[in-house]
């Protein structure tokens, strides 16, 4: 059966700025995240992913204002992560207009949080975010605090456990490939997408349309792109055209505005 994937724009935010790093480090400021969000919406992006990349370091979450502003004019799903530590934090971000919460650090520290969020808002709201760093051949370890701290968890096992606990989706980011724009970790995508029965959003490494095609063919249910879009190397419709040409189904452009 032909597979249909989602194309997601990942917007890493620090303070009020859109930023982009390499392997989650060395951040560069790119501007107003809402400006980028609107642009991608108009280009036909399927979903937006906001990550407050310093929130868990400073124990805070300041994305509510940005999200509230985004959803004033952007009518696609918005997933938000970074610094969400409790059911109350998730409630706050959902009431600001987010549809899903991506949780990494707090879930590593207290896996029951996954079940609590799923019970309160449904599994479809609970996205388990996993930062995967290669630890050996065919093995990856889950990191948190933006790839700085290691959990000791095997990525595939952690993904499976997360789904058992109630995660309705996995956000899988390759720390090794992130920001390099030299292609995705296809082996990682294959390993995780075969291990779980929920959708897997894969990110880290897309530098051109062919990288997204390879990620989709390796088993990703959604591809998260950042640098390739932020730096204007590709447009949303350029990526979609290439995916379609390679036999990967994507949402069609709408002629309505």
């Amino acid at each position: 059966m032909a597979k249909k994937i989602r194309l997601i724009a990942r917007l890493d935010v620090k303070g009020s700025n859109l930023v982009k790093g390499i392997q989650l480090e060395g951040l560069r400021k790119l501007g107003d995240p809402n400006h980028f969000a609107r642009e991608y919406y108009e280009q036909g992006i399927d979903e937006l992913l906001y990550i407050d990349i310093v929130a868990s370091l400073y124990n805070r979450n300041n994305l509510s204002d940005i999200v509230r502003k985004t959803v004033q004019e952007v009518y696609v799903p918005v997933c938000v992560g970074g610094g969400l530590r409790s059911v109350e934090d998730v409630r706050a971000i959902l009431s600001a207009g987010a549809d899903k919460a991506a949780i990494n650090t707090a879930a590593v520290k207290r896996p029951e949080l996954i079940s609590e969020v799923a019970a309160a808002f449904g599994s479809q709201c609970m996205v388990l975010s996993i930062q995967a760093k290669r630890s050996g051949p065919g093995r990856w370890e889950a990191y948190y605090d933006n790839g700085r701290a290691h959990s000791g968890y095997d990525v595939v096992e952690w993904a499976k456990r997360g789904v058992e606990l109630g995660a309705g989706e996995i956000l899988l980011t390759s720390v090794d490939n992130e920001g390099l724009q030299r292609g995705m970790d296809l082996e990682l995508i294959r390993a995780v997408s075969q291990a779980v029965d929920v959708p897997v959003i894969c990110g880290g490494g897309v530098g051109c349309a062919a990288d997204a095609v390879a990620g989709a063919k390796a088993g990703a249910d959604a591809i998260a792109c950042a640098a390739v879009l932020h730096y204007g190397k590709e447009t949303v419709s350029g990526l979609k055209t290439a995916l379609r040409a390679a036999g990967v189904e994507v949402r069609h452009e709408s002629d309505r505005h």
Partner: protein
Amino acid sequence: MKVTVIDYGLSNLFSVQRAFTHLGAEVEVVNQPQQVQEASALVLPGVGAFQDGMDGLAKLGLIQPIRDKAAAGTPLLGICLGMQMLFDESEEFGLHQGLGLIPGRVVRIPSVDTDNAPQRVPHIGWDPLLPAQGRTDFGGSALAGLHPGEECYFIHSYEAKPTRETDRLADTLYGGRRVCAAAACGSVLGVQFHPEKSGPVGLEILRGWLAQCEGRA
């Protein structure tokens, strides 16, 4: 046009609210029986588990007022979980009673597709709206402005099975199977997808629904 959005504690109401105000409607968010009784057009949004949703409505004393309004012909739009609650019952975590405004049952999406290959549940993604069997288009409904095949955003683990084919307005395709995307019965309309998150296509559906509400008022 005034739209009354029912708040029973389970939703991202902000996006629904925003989509309607964008379309020029006046929106009020309510949780009192009397406010529901006075509404001229009702929206029942919702995410989360079926039983939690019904409990939320029951606790606020909203079940009977919603049924009364539907019986009186007030337009009622259920979105996602709000759509599922319009049916008689759901199999989500045991068998639970719904509002009973559209005959049928809500069941789990199968874990395999028509090729018997495993498929993802929840179903998350943008999928096409197709006229239900026996229809050639969406004429006469809130979806009338759509071309068959236009895509909307779905996120759900359970699907509604209307008892009567005639209540089925639109289907989508998931894993090679037809899944009920929209069901309508009298003044009651339920949509499994999120029109408020489905870009210009979703807004067109909400615009169509508002136009129908105005026609009835």
